[in-house]
């Protein structure tokens, strides 16, 4: 029985992204060596918009359900993460339009890689078969490895790519071993079947425990939670800024989706304390590490570890499914919005060869470019968690979920950490508004692409803070239909 047309609708966003990616790839060699690739970027952005449209189309109730021989499943959960990933890809494309020529890496492959990488991330959120999850994970990872090394003449960038690649493959091997053992222990590679076996059979094969542990290791690496966070600062510091915006949010969100489906949602045995410890470690290491950083990208890398920790808090409270999972989903969206925004500003500021990525370079930005400074301030305030930003609401939701599942200590540690975090974000704000500028050189004018990327993130962050209801409802719909319960 061949796949029906409904099946194709269920992978419509992926199809659109893949076709657009290939089109960009084919167009690239046709353009002359000195032609600007901006057109390709705009074309790629168009593809993202179309994919977004396809996702919205796919969200109709008629298309919900399993597709392609139970390989994937379209539900609230997958649609939500599709939207996050595609919007991040769109913003990244937009902010790269001027970044690439400025760094003399104006290649069409860049856009193709983002689009094709997004295919993998989208599939990660909808796949319910370990085979497909694994391949999607690899697509997203390999695309990220290449993008991290895209400034291939820079020693930092290639080093970042190499570290990411070697450690990433190392972690993938762990993940894969876990998958193999899970397959052996449960006799299936289908997530729902595995969940059934783990939940109903009287005797769980001990191999399953090792399997879950190894899978957690692999995914923990992808989401950068302690103790598997260690690669993050190095890789983020070396990679091109727009790429960091991309890979600190989209693959992470997708990996969180997999983690929810695979570890939390299958009610894998004994995950609770592992998540608890990982949450505490990530928050503490991230925040403590960030305090003394002088490079803003590195600082945000540590901060992203901390934010992975806050997300883990949401996971830990997933014993109340509706609360925990929807809090985690909301948080990943809010984090994506604010982090992409911050990196959009940073990539605009970076200058050629990313010279200006020290926090000191932001001194006096409040006067050199009030609009940029205001935008960055807003994103940083959101990362701190000040009300009316998405960051506040996300944190609020996560911690109230944690408290409602009686995780009092975790809540306390989290709140203390978020207080500690405010210190280093604030340092940047202080630098921008209250210090003398280091140079008098004017900040390059904000072009349309970066401007749009910032605007999208700004609107998303504000929207999630002021009007979170629509998103909240959507996320709350997800856990009830997840795992078919």
């Amino acid at each position, binding site marked *: 029985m061949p*796949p029906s047309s409904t099946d194709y609708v269920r*992978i419509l966003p992926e199809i659109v992204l*893949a076709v657009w*990616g*290939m089109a960009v*790839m084919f167009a690239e060699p046709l353009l002359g*060596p000195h032609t600007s690739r901006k057109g390709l970027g705009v074309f790629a952005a168009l593809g993202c918009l179309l994919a977004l449209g396809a996702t919205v189309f796919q969200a109709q109730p008629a298309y919900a359900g399993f597709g*392609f*021989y139970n*390989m*994937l499943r379209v539900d609230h959960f997958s649609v939500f993460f599709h939207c996050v990933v595609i919007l991040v890809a769109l913003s990244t494309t937009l902010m790269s339009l001027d970044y690439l020529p400025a760094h003399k890496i104006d*290649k069409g*492959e860049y856009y*193709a*890689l983002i689009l*094709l*990488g997004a*295919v*993998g991330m989208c*599939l990660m959120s909808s796949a319910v*078969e370990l*085979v*497909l999850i694994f*391949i*999607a994970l*690899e*697509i997203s990872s*390999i*695309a990220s*490895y*290449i993008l991290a*090394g*895209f400034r*291939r*003449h820079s020693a930092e960038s290639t080093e970042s*790519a190499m570290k990411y690649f070697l450690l990433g493959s190392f972690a993938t091997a762990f993940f894969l071993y876990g998958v193999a053992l899970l397959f052996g222990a449960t006799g299936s590679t289908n997530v729902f079947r595995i969940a059934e076996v783990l939940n109903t059979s009287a*005797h769980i*094969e*001990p*191999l399953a*425990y*090792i399997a879950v542990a190894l899978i957690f290791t692999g995914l923990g690496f992808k989401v950068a939670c302690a103790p598997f966070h260690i690669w993050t600062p190095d890789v983020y510091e070396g990679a091109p800024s727009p790429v960091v915006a991309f890979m600190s949010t989209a693959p992470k969100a997708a990996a969180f989706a997999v983690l929810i489906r695979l570890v939390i949602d299958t009610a894998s045995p004994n995950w609770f304390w592992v998540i608890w410890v990982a949450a505490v470690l990530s928050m503490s290491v991230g925040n403590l590490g960030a305090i003394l950083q002088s490079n803003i990208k590195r600082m945000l890398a540590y901060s992203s570890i901390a934010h992975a920790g806050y997300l883990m808090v949401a996971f830990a409270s997933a014993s109340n499914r509706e609360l925990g999972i929807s809090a985690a989903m909301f948080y990943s969206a809010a984090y994506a919005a604010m982090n992409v925004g911050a990196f959009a500003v940073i990539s605009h500021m970076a200058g050629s060869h990313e010279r200006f990525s020290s926090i000191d370079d932001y001194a006096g930005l409040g006067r050199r470019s009030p609009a940029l400074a205001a935008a960055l301030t807003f994103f940083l305030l959101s990362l701190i968690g000040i009300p009316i930003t998405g960051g506040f609401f996300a944190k609020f939701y996560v911690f109230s979920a944690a408290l409602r599942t009686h995780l009092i200590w975790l809540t306390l540690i989290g709140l203390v950490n978020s207080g500690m975090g405010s210190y280093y974000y604030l340092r940047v704000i202080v630098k921008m508004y209250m210090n003398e500028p280091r140079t008098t050189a004017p900040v390059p004018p904000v072009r349309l692409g970066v401007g749009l990327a910032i605007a999208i993130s700004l609107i998303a962050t504000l929207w999630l803070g002021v009007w979170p209801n629509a998103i909240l409802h959507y996320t709350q719909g997800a856990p009830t239909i997840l795992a078919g319960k």
Partner: protein
Amino acid sequence: MHQFLFIVFAVFCAGGAINLLVQRKTINSALSLIVVMGSLAMIYLLLGAEFVAVVQVIIYAGAIMVLYIFVIMLLNAGDEEASKGSNVAKYFGIPGLFIGGIIGIGVLLKHRPNDTPLKLGALYGPADQVGMLLFTKYLLAFEVTSVLVLIAIMGAVVLARRSDS
């Protein structure tokens, strides 16, 4: 017979793996990896995985390892440089690995409810059946791998091409 063949190939396999670790010349490591892969292909045959065994030889030992050796030759990777090792790896990674390994082996040996003794070729997996499965149940995964390969090709081109300036 099965037992004998398994032991022979397992010894080859393990020996190759250990040799990979011991050798200081990169090219020797690569060659011992080929030994590992070849004997693994034999073991797959013992388990009846015909198609996989063939693919193992063609793709792994044939294509991938050739690529490795090509790069080793290209970059003139000779002896391994002796440099200060990493203490973390030495004092945490390796013990951790041993603890993990012991636990794993312990679990394997202690709990083996379905440890059915296998006959030679207990599951027969010929190419046509694998192919059927690949193009029905795993159709989407199969199609998606094309994206993966595309990315890999593009990445290799982007990263390794000579600078145009």
